[in-house]
């Protein structure tokens, strides 16, 4: 978070803005992160996962580049602000930041439209049903129907096992620790299946 703010301050004179979106159940969950970073760019809260659904975000952090005409020029990718957890996931932050600077200051666009499309992961019927189940679960939870909500959170996770905005993102709502044993179990299951927890964009810097 603080790094996105630094990049914004560095590059804003070039017609550039950062928009952060917290996929958190309440503004209060995101508040400590936002107050620490003290962003001067829009820093938004998406409790209903509206943007996750619109852009097919299945994990965080996810970044997308959108140009002056509102076109996606670089599809969903994993990008970290810093190398704080690099030992865990092996993804360096610097190459993305360098590519971002080149795009903003020199208009270096990494992909043609065709290449961008080839790299998009599009949602399946199961994922879209999972998102409907998640929306229903979140509504039921907010209405105090905790047991009913749990059924639909579980169903959503079964339908979209790779969507961690659902499986891990629902943990704080369901009273599970997203940094503790429930997440460790999910992470191990995924690693043992030979699937990476973070899926970087192909052919990106």
């Amino acid at each position: 978070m603080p790094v996105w703010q630094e990049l914004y301050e560095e590059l804003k004179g070039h017609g550039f803005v950062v928009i952060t979106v917290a996929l958190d159940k309440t503004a209060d969950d995101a508040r400590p992160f936002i107050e620490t970073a003290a962003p001067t760019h829009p820093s938004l809260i998406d409790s209903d996962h509206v943007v996750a659904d619109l852009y097919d975000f299945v994990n965080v952090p996810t970044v997308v580049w959108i140009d002056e005409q509102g076109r996606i020029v670089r599809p969903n990718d994993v990008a970290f602000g810093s190398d704080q957890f690099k030992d865990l996931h092996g993804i360096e932050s610097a190459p993305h930041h360098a590519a971002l600077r080149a795009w903003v200051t020199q208009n270096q666009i990494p992909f043609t439209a065709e290449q961008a499309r080839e790299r998009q992961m599009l949602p399946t019927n199961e994922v879209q049903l999972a998102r409907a189940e998640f929306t229903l679960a979140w509504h039921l939870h907010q209405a105090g129907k905790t047991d009913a909500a749990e059924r639909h959170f579980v169903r959503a996770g079964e339908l979209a096992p790779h969507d961690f905005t659902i499986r891990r993102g629902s943990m704080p709502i369901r009273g599970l620790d997203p940094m503790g044993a429930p997440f460790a179990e999910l992470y191990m299951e995924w690693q043992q299946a030979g699937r990476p927890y973070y899926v970087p964009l192909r052919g990106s810097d």
Partner: protein
Amino acid sequence: MATANFTLLDETRAVQVPVTLNGAQVRIAPVALRTALGWELKPQGLCKDDICVPTGGQPGLVSNDGVDLAGFANVVRRPLAIDLDEHAACLGVSASDRSAQLASLTAPDFTLPDLNGTRHSLSDYRGKKVLLVAYASW
């Protein structure tokens, strides 16, 4: 058979609709379908704005008690999550609609609040390069 009030989430917008329940079947009166969701039953099928979807392949879609909710979702190709006990359901967005939007490379617009409740739209920043970052506390 019983009547009840159902909460129907049209994407994330909640609307209340009177329904008739018969086992696992939820039926909505055509007038409620029109006022709540904007779909109207016409001789040529289910219509919204200038789009009509034929209903011929769905026998039993329409009865005296109204339009079958699951059948309706099927006809308009939207995913349906339903909780019969709690009288609530969510109609999501189809994979084909989402995929077509994303593959067009036109960034979908959205409006969300910041910590102070001030609402911002992506389209407010047209004319600038935007780095959109999704993150979470979890």
